[in-house]
C-alpha cells in the first residue's frame, strides 16, 4: 500500500486531483442564512500540499466538510458548485459510493484526535476496521496491517501500542494513530488535515508536521492543510489559499505569497504575527483593526472593506473579480497592495 510512489513525479504534479468550482455553502439558521462559503474555486494537484488559511469563521473547515460531504444537513445546504475528485463530481455521487471513498481515497484528520477515536476500542482494532471494511481482509491480517501502519507513523513498540485504548496515549500519539488510520488504504489520494497540530505542544507539532511531510512524499498523496498558523503554512505548504468571511481572497505559491502578498488582508495577517520580521524590535505589533463581520448581516461588496486600509468606493458595492497576475498567483481585490509589499 505504501510502494505506489514510483510514478513519474513531474507528470503527477500536473494532474488535477481535486477541483472545486463555484462552491456555495450556507447554513439556514433561525436567525437567518449564513453564507459560509461563497463562489469558491480551488484545485489541488496530485501529491501537493495546499494550505487553506484564515481566521475563525472564514469557511475553511466548511470547505473541508463539503469535500467529504460531511456538512450537517440541515441546517447546511450546498447551494451550488462542483467538487471533482479525479474527474468524478463528488456532489453527485450516491451516498454508498461516497462512503466507499471516504476513509479510503479521501481521509480526514482533526484538531482533537480524542473526539475522533472511539474510546471503547483499542487503536489497533480501529485501524484494522478500515482494512476490514474497505478491503474485506480477515481480522488477523487486518490487525497485522494496523501494526505495520503504527510502525510507519513512528509509534514506538507498535505491537504493544496497538492494544492500547485512546485514553492511554498522549495527544501526539493519538494524532499519529489518526494519521495511520488515514493511510489505511490501498491508494490514498487526498488527506484533509483540519488544524492537525493546533492542540499539540510545539515540540510535538514539529514531529507531526515532519511526519506528515515525509509520509506524503512516500505514499504520494496530496494534503489539504487547514490552519490559522502562518508558521505552519510556511514550513509545510506548496501553495496557499487565504480565506476571509467565506471568500477566497488570495492564492499563490507559498514563497510568492509570503514575499509578494497583494491582498491587504494577506499582508495584514502576515504582519500581525509576533514573529514577523517587521515586528522585530518594534514597540507595538502591526495589527488589523476592527473585527470579522457578522456573516448574517453581510452586505454585497468586499467583506474586508470595514477593516481595510486600501478601501475604495467600489469595495462597498461589489465583490472584486479574480485578478490573475501569474500562473501561480491570483487575488480578489479592487485596490491591491502595490509594488513589493514584502512584509519581511
Amino acid at each position, binding site marked *: 500500500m505504501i510502494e505506489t510512489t514510483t510514478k513519474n513525479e513531474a507528470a503527477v504534479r500536473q494532474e488535477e486531483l481535486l477541483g472545486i468550482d463555484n462552491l456555495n455553502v450556507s447554513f439556514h439558521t433561525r436567525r437567518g442564512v449564513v453564507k459560509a462559503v461563497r463562489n469558491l474555486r480551488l484545485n489541488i494537484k496530485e501529491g501537493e500540499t495546499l494550505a487553506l488559511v484564515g481566521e475563525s469563521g472564514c469557511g475553511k473547515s466548511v470547505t473541508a466538510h463539503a469535500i467529504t460531504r460531511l456538512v450537517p444537513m440541515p441546517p447546511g445546504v450546498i447551494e451550488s458548485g462542483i467538487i471533482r475528485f479525479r474527474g468524478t463530481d463528488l456532489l453527485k455521487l450516491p451516498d454508498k459510493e461516497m462512503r466507499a471513498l471516504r476513509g479510503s481515497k479521501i481521509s480526514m484528520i482533526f484538531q482533537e484526535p480524542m473526539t475522533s477515536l472511539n474510546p471503547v476500542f483499542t487503536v489497533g482494532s480501529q485501524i484494522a476496521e478500515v482494512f476490514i471494511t474497505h478491503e474485506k481482509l480477515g481480522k488477523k491480517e487486518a490487525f497485522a496491517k494496523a501494526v505495520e501502519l503504527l510502525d510507519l507513523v513512528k509509534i514506538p513498540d507498535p505491537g504493544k501500542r496497538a492494544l492500547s485504548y485512546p485514553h492511554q496515549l498522549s495527544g501526539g500519539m493519538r494524532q499519529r494513530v489518526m494519521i495511520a488510520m488515514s493511510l489505511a488504504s490501498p491508494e490514498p489520494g487526498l488527506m484533509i488535515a483540519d488544524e492537525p497540530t493546533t492542540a499539540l505542544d510545539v*515540540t510535538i507539532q*514539529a514531529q507531526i508536521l515532519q511526519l506528515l511531510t515525509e509520509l506524503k512524499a512516500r505514499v504520494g498523496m496530496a494534503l489539504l492543510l487547514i490552519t490559522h498558523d502562518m508558521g505552519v503554512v510556511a514550513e509545510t505548504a506548496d501553495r496557499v489559499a487565504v480565506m476571509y468571511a467565506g471568500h477566497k481572497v488570495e492564492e499563490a505559491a507559498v514563497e510568492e505569497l509570503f514575499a509578494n502578498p497583494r491582498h491587504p488582508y494577506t499582508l495584514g495577517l502576515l504582519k*500581525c504575527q*509576533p514573529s514577523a520580521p517587521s515586528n522585530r524590535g518594534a514597540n507595538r505589533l502591526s495589527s488589523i483593526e476592527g473585527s470579522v463581520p457578522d456573516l448574517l448581516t453581510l452586505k454585497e461588496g468586499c467583506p474586508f472593506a470595514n477593516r481595510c486600509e486600501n478601501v475604495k468606493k467600489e469595495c462597498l458595492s461589489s465583490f472584486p473579480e479574480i485578478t490573475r497576475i501569474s500562473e501561480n498567483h491570483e487575488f480578489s481585490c479592487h485596490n491591491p497592495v502595490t509594488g513589493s509589499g514584502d512584509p519581511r
Partner: protein
Amino acid sequence: MSKVRSTTPLLAAQDVHKSFTIKDDRGPARNLKAVDGVSVDIAPGEVVGVVGESGCGKSTLGKTIIRMYEPDAGKLLWKGNDMTLVSGTDLKTIRKDMQMIFQDPYSSLNPRKKVRDIISQPLRIHAQGDKEEIARRTEEVMNEVGINPVYGRRYPHQFSGGQRQRIGIARALALKPDFVVCDEAVSALDVSIQAQILNLLLDLRDKHGFANLFISHDLSVVEFISQRILVMYLGRIVERAPKVELMKEPLHPYTRALLAAFPIADPSVRKQKKQIVVGDVPSPLDPPSGCHFHPRCPLATDRCREAYPPLVDVSPGRQVACWEVSAG
C-alpha cells in the same frame, strides 16, 4: 520600554513548591509536583515571560505566586514582606494590588452578569468609593480597554472573543494593580485580534506601569512582550535569561529544542531537516529521574540520569540548569 530596575523586587518568590494530590478510581492517590522549587523575582514595571509546554507548571506558578494557590513550601515576598504569613484583611489589602487575566474569555466571565457589574465587582469588593465613584471608574477603565461604556448593560455573550478579553482586562485593571499575571491571555484569540490585545496590554502597561508575569506556550508572543524569559520543563526552571540573549543563543538543550520546533513564518528559510527533539513530554505524575529532560536530550550522560542539575549563573542575569552546559 524598559524601566529602571529598583533594588527591592516587587515580588520575590523563593524556592516555591506546589503539588497536587491526584485521586482517581484506579490505584492509590498520587502526588503531582506541579511547581518544584522555583524562584523568581519581578521588579516594579517589569515583564517576565514564562514559556513551556503543557504540564510544565507555568500556570500553577502564576497562581501560586499570587496565592490563588497556597504554596506548600517557599517564601513569597511582596514588596519585601512575606505574604505567606498574612491573612484576613491584610491579605485582602495586598491582593488588591495583584490581578489575573485568564485564557478563556468565555468561561472567565460570569454569563449571568452585566458587563459593567463584572468590571466593577473588584471595586465593590475593595470598597473603592461610593456608587458614583465606582460607576465613574468603571466607565473610565472601559474606555481605556476600548469597550464603549454604553455597552455596559450587555451580557458577555453579546461580545466577540476579542471584546470579552478586553472586558477581562478591564476587570483586572479596575483597581490599578501593581502586578498582573496573564495566563495564556491571548492564546484563544485569532491572530489579528491577538495583535490588538497584545498592543492594548502594552499601551496600558506604559500608562500604568504595572509589572507583569506573562505565561504562554507561544514563544513568539512571550518574546515580543517580555524583558526576561523563564523556560520551564516539568515543574522546574531550566533556563532564565534576558529575552535577547535567550533568543539569540539558547543554552539549555530544551530551550534549543523549543526554539527549533517553533515554526518560522518564512518559507525561504524552510529547513530541509530540522533538528527535532524526539519523544513525548513525560507525565508530571512520574517525571524521569535526574534531569527531567534527559530521555529526550541529545547531550544526556549518566550524571544527567542520576542527579538533577542546579540552576547556576552563567552570565549576569542568566542561569541554566544543565550539567553539560554548565560544565562548559
